[in-house]
């Protein structure tokens, strides 16, 4: 069996195991959850290290395929290439960190851990799957616990409304995707019908899809996936939902689950529906500006930290979409890099704001200030995370955004320029203002304490370290991503712009 199977199966098996454990054995429950997610993290690291970069262009590694429902053309098929390699690693890190910070949950802990493990296992399974049925199946498995968790453990007075909105929006998005995937599958002649992504790609490479079905399927996938990724103007569920969600849920959803839509677009919509991708590219890039500028301006007005982070995370998704809309190698490589970077970043900021909410009992920035004196560790990490959020070099977001902007420049200078403005000026304004309002000032605080022990610091440290690691060495990811994105771009049919690596010693005197 492929290690990929274990990566998502371990959390799920742990969830089943927890069902059998009485609820008062809290230590055992937490232990099992930590152990399972840590084991899947270790496996993800092993897969990441053992992945053979020289063969990245040749297709999927660590593949495993088994018949499941041959009459429907469904098989269990997992594998990794450069695109999902980093996502799986990021997912495993975030899920482990989310389990670490789950100690903030004080009621019905057993159910919470079961749902969190289901969610984590489900989304890792979705990223590993190369069969569209399981791709959808695992995502749905991860999505439903999200709704329950927000509904039951959520916070704030808007909890019920947020649950209602996020459930309706995301279910609708997921079902639109299902329709699109089914329609795609039915384009194949009767005896060749398969939901296997590799075989679908081969088939459509040999027999490009006619225009009429493309015109139907692409919008279904674009808006279905778009709703899941909070593409403007379908983003309203996101800030509200994250504002009300319990911290671990917000971390896994904003960090990992949300990337599913972008991943689906890159993996399925672009290569299989190239003509419509070209037609829609300009529309997508305009919608992205909605994300980047509109949601950025909305974030500027927020006085609640979680709503600010939620809106800024929506704004970041705009960059990821912008890279997709560029339809060239640089842009899409940048998108994948942003997906990984933003996964770490979103998880980090939400986990920190969860810590603040627990300690300070409020997230209203007007009532905060001067907290850095009391919370040196948390404060430092958060300031670094916020600087990473405005695209400071040295963090993983920066190379991703740069690549996306380069890719977009090729397509439209105007849009690229506006996006830069959004990234640098707007994000700079709200992030720096938040840093000033929360951490600086002369307000005195009593009765709050920093994260002091190693175990309490571990999740934040792990996420921050990943951000910095991929910020300084983005080539750990980009080389593999580039090799796997190149066939996608070839299928879309835009002439390739070669991404030549900077020659060694170029910057040295």
């Amino acid at each position, binding site marked *: 069996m492929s290690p990929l199977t274990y990566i998502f199966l371990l959390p799920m098996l742990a969830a089943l195991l927890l069902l059998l454990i009485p609820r008062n054995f809290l230590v055992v429950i937490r232990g099992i959850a930590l152990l399972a997610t840590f084991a899947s993290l270790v496996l993800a690291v092993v897969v990441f290290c053992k992945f053979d970069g020289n063969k990245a262009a040749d297709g999927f590694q660590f593949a495993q395929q088994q018949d499941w429902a041959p*009459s429907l053309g469904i098989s269990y098929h997992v594998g990794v290439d450069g695109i999902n390699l980093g996502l799986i690693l990021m997912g495993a890190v975030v899920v482990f960190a989310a389990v670490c910070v789950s100690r903030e949950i004080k009621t019905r802990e057993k159910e919470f851990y079961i749902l969190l493990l289901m969610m984590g296992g489900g989304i890792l399974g979705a990223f590993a799957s190369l069969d569209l049925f399981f791709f959808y*199946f695992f995502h*749905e498995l991860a999505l439903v616990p999200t709704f*329950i968790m927000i509904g039951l453990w959520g916070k704030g007075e808007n909890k019920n409304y947020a649950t209602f909105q996020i459930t309706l929006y995301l279910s609708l998005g997921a079902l639109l995707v299902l329709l699109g995937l*089914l329609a795609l599958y*039915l384009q194949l002649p009767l005896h060749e019908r398969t939901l296997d992504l590799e075989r679908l790609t081969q088939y459509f490479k040999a027999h490009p899809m006619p225009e009429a079905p493309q015109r139907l399927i692409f919008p279904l996938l674009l808006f279905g996936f778009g709703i899941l990724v909070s593409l403007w103007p379908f983003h309203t569920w996101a800030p509200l939902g994250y504002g009300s969600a319990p911290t671990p849920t917000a971390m896994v959803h904003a960090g990992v689950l949300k990337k599913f839509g972008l991943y689906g677009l890159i993996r399925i919509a672009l290569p299989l529906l190239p003509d419509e991708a070209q037609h829609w590219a300009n529309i997508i890039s305009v919608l992205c500006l909605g994300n980047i500028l509109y949601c950025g301006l909305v974030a500027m007005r927020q006085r609640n930290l979680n709503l600010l982070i939620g809106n800024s995370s929506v704004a970041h998704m705009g960059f990821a979409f912008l890279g997709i809309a560029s339809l060239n190698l640089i842009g899409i490589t940048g998108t994948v890099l942003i997906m990984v970077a933003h996964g770490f970043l979103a998880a980090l900021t939400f986990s920190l704001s969860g810590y603040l909410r627990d300690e300070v009992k409020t997230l209203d920035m007007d009532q905060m200030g001067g907290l850095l004196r009391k919370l040196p560790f948390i404060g430092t990490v958060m300031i670094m995370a916020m600087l990473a959020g405005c695209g400071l070099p040295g963090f993983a977001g920066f190379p991703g955004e740069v690549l996306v902007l380069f890719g977009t420049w090729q397509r439209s200078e105007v849009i690229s320029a506006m996006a830069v403005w959004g990234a640098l000026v707007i994000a700079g304004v709200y992030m720096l203002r938040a840093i000033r309002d929360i951490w600086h000032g002369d307000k005195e605080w009593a009765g709050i304490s920093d994260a002091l022990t190693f175990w309490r610091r571990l999740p934040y440290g792990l996420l921050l370290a990943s951000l910095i690691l991929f910020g300084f060495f983005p080539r750990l990811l980009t080389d593999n991503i580039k090799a796997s994105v190149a066939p996608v771009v070839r299928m879309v049919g835009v002439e390739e712009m070669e991404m030549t690596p900077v020659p060694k010693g170029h910057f040295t005197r």
Partner: protein
Amino acid sequence: MNSELLIRHLQMEGLTLEIAVAGLALLLLLLDLWTAPQSKSRLGFVAVAGLLVILATSFLIHPGGWATPGAMLAQDGLAVFFQRIFLVAAIFVLLMAGEWADRIPMGIGEFHVIVLMALTGMMLAAAANDFVLVFVALELISASFYVLVSFQRSRLQSLEAGVKYLIQSALAAAFLVFGIALIFGTANHTNFVLLSREAAALDHNKVYWLGVLLVLFGLSFKIAAFPLQVWAPDVYQGAPTPVTAFLAIASKAAGFVLVLRVLFVAMPKLAVHWDKMLMLAAGITILYGNLCAIPQRNLKRLLGYSSIANAGYLLVGVAAVNPSGAVAVLYYLAGYLFTLAAAFLVICVVMRDNDDIGALAGLSRRSPLLAGALALAMVSLAGIPPMAGFLGKFLLLRAAIERGAADSGCYWLAGVTIIGVVISLYYYFGVIRVMYWAKDPPDLSPIVVPARVQISLAACMVAIVYLGISPGSVLAGATEAVKALKF
């Protein structure tokens, strides 16, 4: 007509399962005479044992393939598939009746007999290859249900439900028989195979069309779909819980096998002409069921509306007019059987005199098994993986989109289905929420669950998950079964 011809005409050798069920019913009627009143509920176990034997036998008989022209019965794969659904449903219903027996002061000896009579009707309906037999089978089912629905004679609600069912069922039967008369009048046949041979000649006969339309109108009562769906919530709410379960699972499945046979055996090509009408009926049924279910507080009534919504989903498979649609209908019904059996078993044990959803409060602490089973059933009904309901809806949507290439209306229907599914999340999750997270449950006394109910629930739960993650064998069975249909 000599006796040999008569035997061939009735295809007695194919009738084994139906006759066995009828025989079991008569045996129970006799046993009832010699059983003391206090031990009458034990007769249910005799019936269950008998049905288990019959179910096992059904795996030994090889379906006879396509019926001989003129035969009353078609003992084909389709018939056997549905007969198994009916047998399993009846077994669960009889087990529920055992739980529910103490609520009837006058004993429930004849209850089992009537359930078996209804079952005989359903078994005949599954194999019916002639409109005359269709009518006989449906009347047998309906007449049995008249008694069953109003079985709690001391309860006003039960009697009210019985009257409502009687009146509307009689109305539907009247439409049906009028339709059959028109068909016989124009085609001179009532046999499905012979009718299908006349199809080309009758293609433009308006009277014949009216006949078929009336037949479908009558059948829409049985499946609880638009235009005759109004009865379902009232009757589901008032009827004794085991009867509600039997109506929701088996009676609906019986309606669907007849719809499939009438449309795709007797009147090939007609469904293609009428697919717009079928789609409209499916769409309206989905929206009606789901929207009306939102405000419901009575669980049985909620399941009544949910049953309408599910009839709508199943009609999507019929309106797709292709083999994948029919396969999806069969698969969906198989999953629906176990899902609803689990739900009604729990209702039967927990809700003794109060069907309000609030009565479920704190169930997770009173009995984790019951709460888990009902939650699993609701999750499956909501169509969430890895349950049977998800795969069923997946297959239905696939069929609809496959048809969409020929008729873009099906894309709209798939869209309506999705809207229905999203709406249904709200009320199905409402039930789960009350069980697990209600504030201040009034009653926290543990519920004792008898071993037979535990086993049945475990079987249902395993089946729900099995059908969701390992569809191979049942899917192959369904694919084989729909070969009896022509598209």
